[in-house]
């Protein structure tokens, strides 16, 4: 019978408020196998951990049960403490009596009984535990960054600066992401491309960064430190090596189409580059619009191209890369205004969303920075800005706040007022959220200096009446109905994850939440890591946020990658599958189940008496196995077992809970 120590934590009032901690540790004192049982105010504190270490050393304990908060929180803390005291860390198990007992039950008596039963079950589990030793696995020191926006670029630059190779994959033909489309940025109103282009240029020429634009990640396998990723390089129909960027083809191309970079505000040629400062500054042919692809004639670009680099028959190719870590920076999109029926469902040309307004206001945009109405190009005398269009809205099950719209709407209003001093800018808002550095002052300046009219209330409907856009709303401060005729309506639509994020999540096996944003490992303590080891998150892929936060988060993700690459090999979790070769008959029914292909047949020699028998058994590649345990269920005779969550341990836990 193992000498087990049980430590029940008060966690201040968190646990002790609904679980009688004293009674629990008292009851555990005379449970078979328990040598020492005690409770303590804050076990995770340094004195708490000292208590555990001292008790292990004094009584030479062989197993520890800590009844406290969730293992996701402090399992590693307590295991490290035990290891410091000379006990194998995998002899320590955590009972979750806070998140899953004290916080979720109100009746103190029931909660205490449940807590005691859970602790007894964990004691039984520890009795069946074994000493486990982590494995060392080789590591590929190369990072894959998915998404070439400001967050992807920041990660790429930081990691490249640290001397590790980076592969930056961007689905658009050029990097820069949404930031490249912005006119100015709040709160300093400095021009977005002025602060962005140095970054994109540096990324373009950095020796450690391999840029793969117009590409997507289609498959990923392996595990942290040893991912193999397949990247689909979509065809650009122009040989970018030979091309010198003279853009003659863009000038001469006869076909004009809608530019999705301009969000429908401007036109582009069938062969063109998205915007003048694009990196890489190379044109791409839009297959759906190019006359040659539709009818087989034209070929104007081939005629004018001095270096003859147009290749119509270019095919997509799949590139395979060995990667050590992945950073997801897939960015965001705005909720399409077609989804908002109360604001015209995209029928009216003069009802535009935030990004379209950015393009109109941008110097490199279709109107060279002059704010004009997309319908007739006139300068609008009155603009209505509608906040929280689609955000904070339970009916559309998108209750979250998109965080950046308050600020960029104030910026839009200021830009408009700087151009049209006598124009009226009205902003319908619910609550102005300006929490960043210099944000509140920025909004105050918009109100006082630029006389932007802020009306507190939601807009009921926007409709067109004899050529004029009518905005029906209410001003809750004066509780009056408000009817404004506006030349232009700008919707601050909700920030949603980019539409390929969900698929990307399933390819990388990283979970996404109900709205499609990636799940971080822990909302407060591990925001830049995903649940999958070796996959990190940066920027709006994880949740809506503004540029300063994105850059700081991206730098954090880069730091995580750099610390991971700072060691020559990785330490793997020893809670992996293990084969009992005496029992295994080699039927290999476990092999098709393993998602990581970690199981292979092997011939072993067994000595029985003086005869040596050759037998086929299954073996586990400890590096590949991630410890999911699905194979141990397929094994009928129980030869395949999972250390850390073995059949014996789960059965003992089960029995103890059913007593």
């Amino acid at each position: 019978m193992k000498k087990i120590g049980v430590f029940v934590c008060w966690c201040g009032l968190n646990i002790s408020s609904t679980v009688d901690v004293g009674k629990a540790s008292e009851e555990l004192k005379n449970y078979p196998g328990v040598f020492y049982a005690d409770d303590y105010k804050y076990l995770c504190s340094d004195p708490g951990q000292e208590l555990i270490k001292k008790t292990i050393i004094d009584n030479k304990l062989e197993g520890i049960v800590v009844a406290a908060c969730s293992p996701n929180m402090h399992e590693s803390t307590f295991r490290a403490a035990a290891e410091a005291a000379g006990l194998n860390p995998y002899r320590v198990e955590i009972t979750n009596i806070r998140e899953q007992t004290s916080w979720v039950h109100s009746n103190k008596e029931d909660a205490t009984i449940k807590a005691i039963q859970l602790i007894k079950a964990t004691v039984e589990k520890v009795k069946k535990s074994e000493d486990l030793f982590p494995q060392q696995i080789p590591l590929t020191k190369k990072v894959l960054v998915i998404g070439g926006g400001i967050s992807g670029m920041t990660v790429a630059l930081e990691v490249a600066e640290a001397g590790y190779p980076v592969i930056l994959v961007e689905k658009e033909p050029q990097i820069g992401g949404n930031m490249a489309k912005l006119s100015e940025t709040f709160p300093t109103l400095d021009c977005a491309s002025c602060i962005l282009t140095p970054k994109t240029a540096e990324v373009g020429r950095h020796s450690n960064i391999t840029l793969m634009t117009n590409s997507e990640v289609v498959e990923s396998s392996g595990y942290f430190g040893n991912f193999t990723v397949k990247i689909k390089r979509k065809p650009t129909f122009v040989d970018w090596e030979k091309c010198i960027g003279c853009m003659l083809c863009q000038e001469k191309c006869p076909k004009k189409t809608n530019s999705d970079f301009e969000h429908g505000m401007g036109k582009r040629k069938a062969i063109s580059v998205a915007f003048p400062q694009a990196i890489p500054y190379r044109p791409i042919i839009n297959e759906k619009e190019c006359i040659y692809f539709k009818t087989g004639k034209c070929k104007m670009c081939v005629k004018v191209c001095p270096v003859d680099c147009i290749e119509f028959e270019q095919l997509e190719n799949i590139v395979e890369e060995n990667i050590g870590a992945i950073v997801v920076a897939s960015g965001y999109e705005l909720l399409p205004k077609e989804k908002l029926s109360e604001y015209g469902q995209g029928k009216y040309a003069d009802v535009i969303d935030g990004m379209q307004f950015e393009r109109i206001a941008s110097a490199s945009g279709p109107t060279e920075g002059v704010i004009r109405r997309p319908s007739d190009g006139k300068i609008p005398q009155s603009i209505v800005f509608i906040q929280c269009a689609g955000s904070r809205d339970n009916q559309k099950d998108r209750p979250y706040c998109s965080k950046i719209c308050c600020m960029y709407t104030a910026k839009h209003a200021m830009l408009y007022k700087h151009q049209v001093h006598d124009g009226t800018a009205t902003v319908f808002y619910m609550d102005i959220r300006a929490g960043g550095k210099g944000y509140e002052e920025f909004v105050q300046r918009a109100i006082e200096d630029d006389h932007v009219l802020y009306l507190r209330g939601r807009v009921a409907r926007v409709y067109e009446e004899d050529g004029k856009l009518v905005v029906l709303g209410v001003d809750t401060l004066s509780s009056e109905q408000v009817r404004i005729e506006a030349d232009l309506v700008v919707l601050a639509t909700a920030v949603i994850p980019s539409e390929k994020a969900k698929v990307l999540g399933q390819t990388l096996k990283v979970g996404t939440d109900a709205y499609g944003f990636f799940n971080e490992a822990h909302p407060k303590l591990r925001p830049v890591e995903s649940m999958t080891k070796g996959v990190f998150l940066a920027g709006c892929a994880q949740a809506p946020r503004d540029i300063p936060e994105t850059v700081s988060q991206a730098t954090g993700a880069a730091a995580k990658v750099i610390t991971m690459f700072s060691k020559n090999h990785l330490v793997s979790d020893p809670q992996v599958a293990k084969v009992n070769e005496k029992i295994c008959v080699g039927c290999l029914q476990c092999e098709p189940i393993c998602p990581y292909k970690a199981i292979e047949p092997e011939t072993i020699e067994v000595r029985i008496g003086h005869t040596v028998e050759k037998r086929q058994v299954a073996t586990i590649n400890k590096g590949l196995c991630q410890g999911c345990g699905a194979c141990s269920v397929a094994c009928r005779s129980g030869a395949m077992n999972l250390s850390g969550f073995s059949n014996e341990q789960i059965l003992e836990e089960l029995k103890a809970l059913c007593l």
Partner: protein
Amino acid sequence: MMTMTEKMREQVKELFVNNEIKLFIGFEKGFTKFSRIPAFAENYDEAKKMIIDEFETPFLAKYLIRELEEVAAGIVEKSERVAILTRGCDYLGIRRLIVDNIILRENIVIVGIPCDGLIDVKKANKLLGEEAREITIDEENVIAKGKTENKIISKAEVVLDRCRQCIMCEPKESDIMLAEKTANVKKNKDYSKIEEIEKMSAKERYEFWSRQFERCIRCFACRDACTACNCRKCIFDITEPEMLEKTVATSEQFMFHFIRAFHVAGRCSACGECERVCPVDIPLGLLNGKLRKDIEFLFNVEEAGIPSEIEPLGEFKLDDPDEW
């Protein structure tokens, strides 16, 4: 024309003479009347007493596990191979062992015989009213001679239940085929008994099965006769962790039959051997049949009885049903 038995003897003589096998497994007359028991012949004269007829016979596939070396020993030369008399259902057992890497196809010689149903002596006795002294079988019917009168019964009446749902009338591929292939009449699946039980109320079902399981004396004959149960050491013999306690309480019996049914789920080829060997006649076919029916229905597996490379529980489809 030569009867099957003579053809078999001639083939076996040939195999032994040019040293192609070390052992031939077939059937011989048992000690009690009409019983056929497995026979092992290491040379031709031992094979002389072997016979083939249409009386109920035990399964031979499981003996291959002990008679052949481990798969790891690789393909043995010709003279070390083992020949085995194989009907369609035996073939499914052999396929099961091959797919489970217990034996190698090259190490065995399959001597195939077609079969369209074996005779159940108990049924003949019941129809006759007493124990038949003599039973002769010809093309369509069976003549059973009792003490006083004898009866002519059509074969269909006395054929074994398991043969009524036979999924494979003769081995799909065999090295030697003793007789030409009969019409491979495809028998439709009859899950009527299982549906009958499904229609019962939960209480009735529990009483029905606990009554069956209480009779079980835990002799493990069903496990030892089943080719799908080919583990080196059975989980019921392992004491750490003790999945099954030695005491024979009702809950332990439920546990035993639940585990065994799940261990052959998707692997059982409905050969009916477990029902045949059970000393207290527990309808195990209805247990394994239920899982087979569900697998065929839920994962649209065409015929769950025929061993596939990967078991139904060893794979999944994205559009598996969601409602439960």
